[in-house]
């Protein structure tokens, strides 16, 4: 028997693989041209070969989270003779080596080959290494230079005879486990410890002093580097070396940044370092204070011998870092010196604004502690801590009842004190100075309490950290969208806060000094009510807030300093009105907002105002879609209103006029993506009848806008995967597909079936992705109503596509899921009409889909549910809305009758007929 000859395709694949492994990048198209008989396989399969090879290369570069040189072994690099491996981190392997030309001992860090394949990254690496080489400081490991050989990039540093603090920590932990038995400890560690603990009597404070001495040195090194404009970005025990004289050396300056960026290669490293990363670094925002945070965590760990964030599951770790869940230092080390505790806690404050302002400040405070002088960092008060705690733990679910009670009582005390002292002032008019002083203190108390409430409001309606505009954080909230879930339990808690807030406002609304606060508080109350679906409560709160603002402004009609706040208020009120079906009134509110913003939102003015103006135009556009339609149907006069397309285009113009740096702001990108989507949606709706060419260009433009929006959002999602808002917006965007091909081909116009099926396939892919993303999003934020609504819309559209593709079996489960989501929404937010409509739509689609599959019995059951719900809704509706709903009910009943007859259920069908007749008679 002869061995079957291997196919030519196999030969092609083998040679392709060999070329890839030799470092070539064969051109696929050229290959396909040379081998036309295998062209399709080359195009289809070879990319998978390339991908597999790349994955292999990456994988080899990082064995289990540590760098690896893959299967290669190194013995020398240029004139460096590698002596032994002394360490391995995520980003490279460190060898002790002899530099033969200078016959000196050096340390060499060799980076895995795959790490620097990218030219940009290589450039960054070389740049950072150059900068690091310029840092001259007693506590920074000197960098001599860089080199490259066989694709291995390395850099050469002074060899430090010392140990990494990671090793030190491991040994100290070991020692603790052996109950302080010092046996077998190495001489270096003993000497270092002795040096650090010098002049201190044995006892609890001795180790504290040693740690502070380490901290002073590192902080001084950081201060020096920061002054040169270099951030470390990866301060961790493994990057701090301690020698026998107790000197600490910081190593790997800037390397993290050089290798990070697109975030592919540091992969493994992140697992190790994430433990020491500052929360804002997760969002890619780093300044000098991030290094201070990391150093603080190192000091924390040195003191307690426990990592602030125990290594563990990645997702949990990320979450813990993000939420700043650090066990209080004193809990782990009851005898920690009080000042040292304050210093460390200040350094590791989750909000950079609460940390030391720079490394020098941290260094000086540590030095003060060592000198037994009073430190400058202030201990945070319980209330401040509570406030910060609230800000961090954005999920109100985390608010325990006792915390809430504490908050409430703090607020109540402040308020009572205020009320009584002002009362005393008025009644007696004596001891005025004393009383004024008391009053001022009480007012401060009150403001503090108020601020604590602000935090609670932030929890539920506040902006994500990414959405605040840095130059004016408070007003920046305006354009931000909430991104926190609210659970039923939270709602109850919130109601209690709201009651207190209402009471507070009632008591203080007339006080000039507090009126603005009150106005704001009402506005926020409205925000929360809106979020909770309590639309009428929200409307009331907004109107009250408006009144207060108007009082503040006196008779002036302009917004003055409050223009932005007022515009925001009108817009929110407009949203509530639109949500309850009063589109004309809503439009009027948005128009007021637009006029308020016009004088303050011109070019060169503050960003928040300009963004709010863009948002206003978008909101206007949305209401215009409906009001124009109504105007067109009711009035004979041609409408003079601008089209919604014009409104969205105006919004886009505003965003386009921003300078480039601002346009890069994630918030601006989000707003732009949304504007583009609204434009695309508007274009899809505005069918041009009769002109095929115009019609085609309209669809093409819509598609182009939509693609642009998708691309923007994909970028945002990639950069900030932790921000669910971007993913939500992407779901909405992907769900926007032309519905034209869903409809059965129209008679008389023979549909190009190939084109149609291609369109359907494309829609299928997009909607499939939207559904997947939506489901993932909902798993993370199960209660977010808008996420749920977005998912259910995507599901419905996907079901339509599947039906149109002749795959009804696959559409029913989708619709069922949509119905159950809609039912959840309706139950959760009974006051929001839009969610009710979603349910009716979904349920209607379910009936149609079941009928199409000839599943008559389930279709009848679903239809009966729908009829019952429609009846119920009809009973609740005010008179003017009944007519339309009655019509809908009539159609349902007709359909039900038909299905029942089809099933042979004549008696039931007759009963339905009777109901139908009665309905018509009444009408």
């Amino acid at each position, binding site marked *: 028997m002869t061995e079957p000859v291997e196919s030519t395709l196999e030969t092609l694949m083998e040679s392709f693989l060999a070329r890839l492994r030799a470092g070539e990048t064969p051109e696929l198209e050229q290959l396909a041209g040379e081998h036309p008989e295998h062209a399709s396989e080359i195009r289809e399969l070879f990319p*998978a070969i390339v991908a597999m090879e790349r994955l292999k290369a990456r994988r080899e570069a990082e064995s*289990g989270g540590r760098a690896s040189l893959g299967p290669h072994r190194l013995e020398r690099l240029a004139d460096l003779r590698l002596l032994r491996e002394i360490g391995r981190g995520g980003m490279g392997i460190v060898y002790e080596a002899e530099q033969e030309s200078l016959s000196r001992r050096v340390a060499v860090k060799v980076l895995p080959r795959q790490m620097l394949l990218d030219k940009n990254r290589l450039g960054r690496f070389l740049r950072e290494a150059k900068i690091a080489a310029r840092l001259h400081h007693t506590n920074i490991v000197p960098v001599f230079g860089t080199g490259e050989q066989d694709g291995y990039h390395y850099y050469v540093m002074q060899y430090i005879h010392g140990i990494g603090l990671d090793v030190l920590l491991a040994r100290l932990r070991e020692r603790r486990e052996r109950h302080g038995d010092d046996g077998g400890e190495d001489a270096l560690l003993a000497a270092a410890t002795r040096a650090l603990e010098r002049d201190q009597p044995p006892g609890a404070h001795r180790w504290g002093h040693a740690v502070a001495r380490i901290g002073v040195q590192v902080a001084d090194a950081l201060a020096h580097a920061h002054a040169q404009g270099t951030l470390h970005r990866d301060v961790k025990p493994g990057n701090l070396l301690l020698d026998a004289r107790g000197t600490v050396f910081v190593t790997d300056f800037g390397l993290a940044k050089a290798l990070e960026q697109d975030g592919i290669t540091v992969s493994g490293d992140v697992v190790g370092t994430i433990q020491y990363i500052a929360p804002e670094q997760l969002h890619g925002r780093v300044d000098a204070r991030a290094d201070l945070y990391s150093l603080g965590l190192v000091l924390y760990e040195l003191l307690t011998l426990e990592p602030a964030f125990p290594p563990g599951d990645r997702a949990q770790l990320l979450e813990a870092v993000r939420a700043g869940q650090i066990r209080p230092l004193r809990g782990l080390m009851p005898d920690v010196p009080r000042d040292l505790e304050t210093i460390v806690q200040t350094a590791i404050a989750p909000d950079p604004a609460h940390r030391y302002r720079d490394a020098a400040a941290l260094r000086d405070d540590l030095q003060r502690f060592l000198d037994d002088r009073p430190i400058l960092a202030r201990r945070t008060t319980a209330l401040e801590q509570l406030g910060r705690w609230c800000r961090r733990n954005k999920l109100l679910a985390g608010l325990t009842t006792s915390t809430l009670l504490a908050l409430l009582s703090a607020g109540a005390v402040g308020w009572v004190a205020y009320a009584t002292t002002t009362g005393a002032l008025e009644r007696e008019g004596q001891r005025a100075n004393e009383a004024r002083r008391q009053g001022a203190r009480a007012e401060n108390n009150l403001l503090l309490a108020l601020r604590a409430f602000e935090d609670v409001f932030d929890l539920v309606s506040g902006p994500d950290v990414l959405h605040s505009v840095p130059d004016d954080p408070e007003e920046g909230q305006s354009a931000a969208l909430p991104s926190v879930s609210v659970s039923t339990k939270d709602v109850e808690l919130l109601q209690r806060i709201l009651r207190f807030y209402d009471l507070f406002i009632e008591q203080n609304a007339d006080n000039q000094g507090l009126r603005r606060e009150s106005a704001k508080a009402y506005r926020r109350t409205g925000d929360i009510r809106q979020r909770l679906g309590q639309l009428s409560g929200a409307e009331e709160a907004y109107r009250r807030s408006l009144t207060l603002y108007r009082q503040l402004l006196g008779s002036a009609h302009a917004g003055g300093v409050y223009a932005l706040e007022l515009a925001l208020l009108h817009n929110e009120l407009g949203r509530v009105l639109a949500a309850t079906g009063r589109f004309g009134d809503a439009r009027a509110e948005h128009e007021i907002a637009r006029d308020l913003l016009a004088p303050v939102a011109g070019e060169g003015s503050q960003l928040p105002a300009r963004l709010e103006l863009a948002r206003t135009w978008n909101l206007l556009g949305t209401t215009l879609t409906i009001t124009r339609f109504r105007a067109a149907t009711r009035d004979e006069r041609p409408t003079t209103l601008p089209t919604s397309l014009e409104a969205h285009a105006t919004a886009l113009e505003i965003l386009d006029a921003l300078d480039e740096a601002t346009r890069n702001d994630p918030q601006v990108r989000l707003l732009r993506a949304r504007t583009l989507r609204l434009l695309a949606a508007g274009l899809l709706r505005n069918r041009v009848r009769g002109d095929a060419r115009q019609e085609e260009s309209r669809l093409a433009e819509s598609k182009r806008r939509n693609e642009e929006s998708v691309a923007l959002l994909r970028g945002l999602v990639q950069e900030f995967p932790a921000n669910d808002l971007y993913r939500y917006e992407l779901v909405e965007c992907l769900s926007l597909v032309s519905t034209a091909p869903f409809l059965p081909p129209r008679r008389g116009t023979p549909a190009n079936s190939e084109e149609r099926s291609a369109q359907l396939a494309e829609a299928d892919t997009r909607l499939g992705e939207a559904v997947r993303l939506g489901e993932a999003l909902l798993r993370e934020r199960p209660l977010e109503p808008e996420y749920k609504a977005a998912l259910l819309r995507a599901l419905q559209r996907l079901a339509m596509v599947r039906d149109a593709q002749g795959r009804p079996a696959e559409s029913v489960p989708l619709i069922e899921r949509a119905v159950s989501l809609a039912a959840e929404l309706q139950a959760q937010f009974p006051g929001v009409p839009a969610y009710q409509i979603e349910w009716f739509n979904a349920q209607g689609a379910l009936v149609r889909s079941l009928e199409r599959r000839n599943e008559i019995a389930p279709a009848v059951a679903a239809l009966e549910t729908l009829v019952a719900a429609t009846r119920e809704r009809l009973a609740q509706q005010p008179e003017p809305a009944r007519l339309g709903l009655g019509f809908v009910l009539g159609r349902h009943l007709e359909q039900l009758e038909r299905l029942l007859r089809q099933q042979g259920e004549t008696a039931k069908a007759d009963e339905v007929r009777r109901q139908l007749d009665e309905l018509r008679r009444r009408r």
Partner: protein
Amino acid sequence: MTQTPEPEDSLVERIRQGSEDALAEYFGRHRERLWRLVHFRMDPRLQGRVDPEDVLQEAFVDVAKRIHIWVENPTMPLRLWVRLTVGQTLIEVHRRHLLVQARSVEHEVPGRLRMPGASSVTLSAHLAGSLTSPSRAAIREEAKRLLHEAIEQMDPIDRQVLTMRHFEELSNAEVAEELGLQPSTASARYIRALARLKDVLRPLDPDQAKGPPP
């Protein structure tokens, strides 16, 4: 003086005659591939705990200890026999570290060799593992699920073929030999596995996601 490397045949012949130097030289020549075998087939739970380098050293000792068995009874080419022995050592390492029965580590291994197999878990851990950066943590979960699905749906032998060809850099003929398949069958299985992966891998590979492949 430049030295032309000794031809493989003569190296094998010297091994037959009992030269330990020749065996070391032979092992050294095949180090890269053997490293890949160990690195790839190592249980994800051991990644980071056990250095493939250490396993290789241990494996060499085993090879040297047992080479007489192959010399006396060469039922298969030396190359294959060495791979088998390294695989055995790896099973030992797994047993030691994971305290599990050897059977459960050498699951789903088609073919003639007894060694830790390319289970769907190891494969997807390897593939998705290359995406562990903070900015990708979330995308990764979804990508991982898709990938896992694609791999789950693969025939175990297809999976084995795919991984041996890429992660261990074996040729089709070598894969066929090791798994006891006809080369044409092995090739067909490879193509089938690639076809299954092509849609999933594209979005997974960040370089590819950005633009067309080179």
